Every structure is written in structure tokens, then in C-alpha cells.
């Protein structure tokens, strides 16, 4: 029964523990459940050692984080930081299975999982521990992602956004002009025509890329393509139910339109379709900007994703910083979080990975994002945040993935359905099955209340 995957995802002490032991632990842990999400948090002395769990990411990011933490220790002589980098594939399980004693004081969490971790008591609300200035400085888009039931559970240094990236030379050749603001976005029909035009000039008739190599049944599937549904005007989850939203007529139509573009789509197996000039248009997030810029130079143009009827939308949200659900040193943890959100730190960090800063002040000082800057469009769409899917409107753009403790099931089912439809399955059947599976999980867990 245990597979390599299962073992790799579990901290080593679990390896020797039996499954029965796990069940017992769960039973015991169950008694610790409490209504007040901050019940296990203690203020502490504001000094001493705090533990930090960070995601083991790209080396540039790790170095930047390490440098930032060193800087914090220097500026706060009384607080020492015990830093641990945890590989991404083990992070979630490590956080889920940690006992209260093992939970870190400060922890890096992936945006869409914040509601789930909050529900599981793995992270605690921050409002009492970070300064008002820090909270006020957070952009709406990132606050939307980090807020669960009205409580702020995380603060973000950076954000993310999707855009349509264009190769100006190829677009010009076909007489296509890239829209530069969300208001001018191509409608889905117009976009089909654009693809037609580009396909004529494209050697293999596939002028469009959307990083199919990332896989649709991964987290990328929901992040990159939930905007299709949002733009059509439907959330994935409405009033705590997927039925009527994810499987609605609107959603089915939008997904069908989206998959009709498959004939024009380069499978992009090598992940270089856009850089190598094989495609003229590419649906992708901000993180590939450095690679695109290097490959295309001045030929790189950027604009909104297609509008499926209710305005162009983009996914937003990314890794943020939270506080352990049972920290005994909340004051010191809050001090670190404040430090992490200071302009200097945010600028240094986002410069290291090219992400849009998630604080107002750092955004205005950014070299890439902001009016007149190369990625003005991306900061513009993040500024006009909806910011969560239950308040969709035609004139807002950035939307966070569903804020629900049942997110693991939502993302798995949505990705599976999308991959199936993309591969040729019937959209109404696949989406209805996904909606049933999500709703069954919600019902099984008392709607995560």
C-alpha cells in the first residue's frame, strides 16, 4: 500500500509509525479542536528563538530568504531565527502532520491552501500580531487570497498574474494587434478569429501555447484556467456548492469554447514554444517574463487573457507568510512578519524572482511593474482585484482561487475534469462529475464548518 510518493511526502518519524498509530494520533488530536482559531497561540516574550519553515524553492529565492532572515537577526538583536527549508513536495504533509510542539512560529504557505490550513488549525490569524501599517500596505488581491472568514491569516511579499504574451513580429505579420488593457481584451470569438489568422501563417498551424506541459490535473490547471469560468461570469463554488456553478451552462459553454482552441495549440512539450518562436501567442504567468524578455527582446508584448463575456480575468495569489497555529512566541513571529513586509525586503525579494510586489509601497518603486514600466499591464490587473470569486464583476480582473477548506478536492477535481475535456471528454459530463465529487466532500465534512 505505501508507495514512494506517500513515503516521500511524510516526515521521517512517520515512516516507522504504523497506520494504526496514525489513526490513534488523529483521534487524540481530534480532542484538541477548538472554536477560537487563536486559542493555542501565546504572545511570548518577543525575544528568544523562533522557528521558521520556508519552502525549498529556486536557489536564488532561497538565498534571498536566507539573506533577509540574516538581516532580521542583525536588526533585532533579541530574536534568533531557526530556519528550515522544506522541499515543496513534502511541505503540505509536514505541516499537516506536525504536532503543536513541532509547528513552526512562522511558516511559508501556498496561497490556495491557506483556508485549509486555517481550518486545520495549522496557522493562526495575524491581525493581533502584525502592525496596522503592514496590513494596510498589502494590495487587495493578496489580501483576498489571505483572508478566511474575515480573519487575515497570511501576508504576502509577492503576487502573481497571468497574461497573454505575444510575439510582435509574428502578430504584425498576421495583422493582429495585441490589446493592452483589460477593457480592450479580445472576446472569445475575436480570439478564435485571431488564432485563425495566425494559423494561416504558422508552419504547423498551431500558433497558440498555454504550457500544456505543466499538466492540467496539477495545481497549474486551476490556477491558469479557472479564469475561463470567472471571465464567463461564474465562480467555481457558489454558496458553498459546486453544483450550479462549476457545472452551470455558462461554465460548460466557456470550457467548450476554450477547448475548441486545442487544434491551434502547440503541445509545448519542451516548454519553449514561445521562446523559440513556434507560437505567436502564449497564455502564461509573470514568472516566465525574464526568459521571454531574453528570448524576444523588444518583440515581447503583453496583454489580457480573452474575455468570455464578463470581462477578462486572471488568477492571482501565490506563496505567502503565516504564523504557526500554536506558536508560543507570537510577538516575535509578528515582528518577523512585519520585517518581511518592509519595502526594502519586498523589493529585494521580488527583484530576485521577478514577481509583482504585493505591497502598495514596493509596487510603486518596482522597476518592472507600474505605469509606464514593462509589465504595467500585470500590475494594472492586480490593482483591479475582485479579489475573491464570490464577488466577481465585469470591471475587476484579478481573482483568487476558491477560499475554502475543501480546496484540495476542488483543485483535484477541477484539474481532472479540465484535463479530460481538453482530451476530448464531454464538458457537461466531466464538469458535473467534478461538481458532484466536490459537493460530496463538502457534505462529508459538514461543509468544513
Amino acid at each position: 500500500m505505501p508507495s514512494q510518493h506517500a513515503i516521500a511526502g511524510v516526515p521521517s518519524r512517520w515512516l516507522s509509525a504504523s497506520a494504526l498509530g496514525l489513526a490513534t494520533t488523529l483521534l487524540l488530536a481530534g480532542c484538541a479542536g477548538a472554536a477560537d482559531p487563536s486559542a493555542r497561540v501565546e504572545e511570548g516574550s518577543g525575544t528568544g528563538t523562533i522557528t521558521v519553515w520556508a519552502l525549498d524553492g529556486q536557489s536564488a529565492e532561497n538565498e534571498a530568504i536566507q539573506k533577509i532572515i540574516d538581516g532580521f537577526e542583525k536588526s533585532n538583536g533579541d530574536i534568533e531565527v531557526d530556519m528550515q527549508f522544506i522541499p515543496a513536495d513534502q511541505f503540505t504533509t509536514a505541516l499537516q502532520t506536525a504536532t503543536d510542539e513541532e509547528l513552526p512560529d512562522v511558516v511559508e504557505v501556498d496561497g490556495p491552501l491557506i483556508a485549509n490550513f486555517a481550518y486545520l488549525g495549522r496557522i493562526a490569524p495575524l491581525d493581533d500580531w502584525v502592525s496596522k501599517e503592514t496590513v494596510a500596505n498589502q494590495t487587495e488581491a493578496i489580501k483576498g487570497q489571505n483572508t478566511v472568514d474575515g480573519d487575515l491569516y497570511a501576508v504576502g511579499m509577492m503576487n502573481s498574474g497571468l497574461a497573454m504574451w505575444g510575439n510582435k513580429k509574428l502578430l504584425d505579420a498576421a495583422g493582429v494587434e495585441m490589446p493592452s488593457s483589460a477593457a480592450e481584451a479580445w472576446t472569445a470569438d475575436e480570439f478564435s478569429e485571431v488564432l485563425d489568422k495566425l494559423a494561416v501563417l504558422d508552419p504547423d498551424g498551431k500558433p497558440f501555447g498555454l504550457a500544456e506541459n505543466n499538466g492540467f490535473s496539477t495545481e497549474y490547471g486551476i490556477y491558469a484556467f479557472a479564469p475561463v469560468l470567472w471571465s464567463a461570469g461564474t465562480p467555481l463554488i457558489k454558496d458553498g456548492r459546486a453544483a450550479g456553478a462549476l457545472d452551470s451552462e455558462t461554465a460548460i459553454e466557456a470550457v467548450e469554447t476554450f477547448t475548441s482552441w486545442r487544434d491551434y495549440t502547440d503541445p509545448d512539450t519542451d516548454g519553449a514554444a514561445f521562446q523559440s518562436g513556434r507560437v505567436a501567442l502564449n497564455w502564461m504567468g509573470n514568472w516566465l517574463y525574464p526568459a521571454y524578455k531574453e528570448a524576444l527582446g523588444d518583440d515581447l508584448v503583453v496583454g489580457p487573457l480573452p474575455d468570455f463575456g464578463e470581462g477578462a480575468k486572471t488568477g492571482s495569489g501565490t506563496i505567502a507568510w503565516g504564523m504557526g497555529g500554536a506558536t508560543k512566541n507570537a510577538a516575535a513571529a509578528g515582528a518577523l512578519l512585519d520585517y518581511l513586509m518592509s519595502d526594502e525586503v519586498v523589493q529585494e525579494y521580488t527583484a530576485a524572482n521577478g514577481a509583482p510586489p504585493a505591497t502598495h509601497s514596493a509596487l510603486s518603486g518596482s522597476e518592472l511593474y507600474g505605469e509606464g514600466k514593462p509589465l504595467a499591464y500585470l500590475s494594472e490587473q492586480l490593482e483591479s482585484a475582485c479579489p475573491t470569486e464570490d464577488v466577481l464583476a465585469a470591471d475587476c480582473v484579478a481573482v483568487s482561487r476558491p477560499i475554502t477548506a475543501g480546496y484540495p478536492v476542488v483543485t483535484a477535481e477541477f484539474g481532472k475534469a479540465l484535463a479530460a475535456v481538453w482530451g476530448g471528454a464531454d464538458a457537461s459530463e466531466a464538469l458535473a462529475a467534478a461538481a458532484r465529487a466536490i459537493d460530496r466532500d463538502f457534505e462529508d465534512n459538514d461543509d468544513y464548518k
Partner: protein
Amino acid sequence: MTLSSIRTGSSRQSRAKRRNRPPGSGAGPLMAAPGLILLTAFLAIPFIGAVVMSFFRIQLGNPRPPRFVGLEQYARLLFDPDISSTFLRSLANNFAFAIVVVPLQTALALGLAILINRKLRGMTVFRTLFFMPLVFPLALVAVIWRLIFARDENGLLNGFLDAISGGAIGPHDWLGDPATALGAIIVMSIWQSVSFQMIILLGALQSVPPELYEAASIDRAGRWSQFIHVTVPGVRNTLIFVTLLTTIFAFRLFDQVYLLDKSASINIEATQTVMFQVITTGYDQNNIGQGSAMAVVFLIIVALIALIQRRLIRQEGGVE
């Protein structure tokens, strides 16, 4: 008294001694203890744990106590249209995979073993080359095969077919088309692990006495006849072992599907297996109870298959 009778005598003595030892002295259980403890800790307890958990609604790390739901998870597995159809589909894929892979891979492994069992110069190089795929980590293998099966004309397989057919065969979506998705996984799996069976069979081949072949050729037995009457009986037990092992591996199919699913758009409906279902339900969707129920049902099915197989093909010699 000959030497052998002395030996027999002494062994009779020692047997008598053993018989004289009072039962319940504890030596037997003591000797068996390490094995039993490990078996209990790593097989029995986890399995009982899975059975127990399958009666509960459990989420990893959930602050709420697991809720007892009785046989609901099993009922869903059998009757809920969504869950049971996926489960049955996975099971069918497992069987389809095993039915094709077990005979094909065993035969191929035997063929390869015979091929590299010759005394030719540089054979070590060939043996190493044939064994290589097994050494690569599967994650890497999946990346390579993704390039091979890519659905456009840049895919290696499509490019190859295009080249040899002079453009007559258009690009095909090997992993996305339900008709070829499982076949693609089968090809990849056989390529990756056939060398393991090959190495085992090679060992067996080398233990077949060369005199038998000499005798057979004196009797003017042809190549084929030698293969049927000398080689196959000579490696019979190993062949049975390899078949059993391949069957178990075939039902354990998980990594290939999981890795390809995470990295490319593969037709998951046509390729998912029960193990894949167990892991994704349990860990990705955090539904440990349902995953456990699947694992328990699957274990029973696989155990039945193993028992039937043992009945049908008995090994010669050894402990009965």
C-alpha cells in the same frame, strides 16, 4: 562402518536430541521473533490500520475527530455511480495492463536473456546497455517518454513514423487518445523493467548444465527443440517466480501513470489504476478513509489472484 553411515548415525542422534528437547522451551518462537515482529509492524498493523480507517471519515491533520461511518465507504465503492465507476475503471485498467504485460514481458525477458547469454566478445557492454533503463529513476524516464509520445509532429515517435512513412502517417496523440493511452504506458513500463526479469532469467539460464545441450545436440535436436526441451524445463521454477513477480508489479502500477499525469495531458480515465486512485484519494484529496477502503478491497482482490496463480502453477522441488 562407512563414513556416510557415521554421518547418518550422528544426524539421527542429533535429530533424537532435538526431539528430546521439551516443547515450549521458547527457542522456536525466539528465533522467529525478529521476523514476526517486523511482519507485524510493517504488514499486519498497517493492514489492520487500513481496515480500521476505512470505517471512518478521516482527513490528515484535521482537528475534528474522525467520524465513524460504518460500511459507507465500501457501499460507495460498490454503488455510488461516480466513485464505483472510477474504481471499476481503474480495476479494469489494472487487469488489462496485467493481461498484456505479464506474458509479454516474461517472454521478452526470456528472449533477451537468451540473446545476451552467448559467449561473444563485448557481451558485458550489451548486458549493461540492456540493464540500463532499470537504473534510471522513473521520474526521468517519464520525462523522456513524454517527449517520445508528444502529440504534435515534434514528438519523437510521431516524427519517426512521419519519416519512415514519408509523411503518410499524421501525428497521433498517443497519451491523450483513450485507444492508445494504456498501450503507451504498457510500452514504457515494459521498456523500463524488462531488464529486471531478464537478469533473473539470465542467472537461471547460466545454471542449466551445458551437458544437457551437448546431449541434446548429439540426439540431433534442433535449436527450437533444445529451447523447448532443455532451456524451458531448466528455468521453469525461475519462470514461475518471474511470472508471479511481474503479476504483482503489474497490479502495483502507479508511478508511470502518476508521473505522466502530473507532467502532461494524458488520458487519465484510460490509464488510471487502483493504486493511483488510492494515493490520489488519500493524499491529494485528503480522504484517508475512502482511500483505505479502496486499498482493502484491492488487497483482497490481489490476494485472491495470487492464490489462484499458486494453485495453477506449482513449482517443482523446494518446500511444499
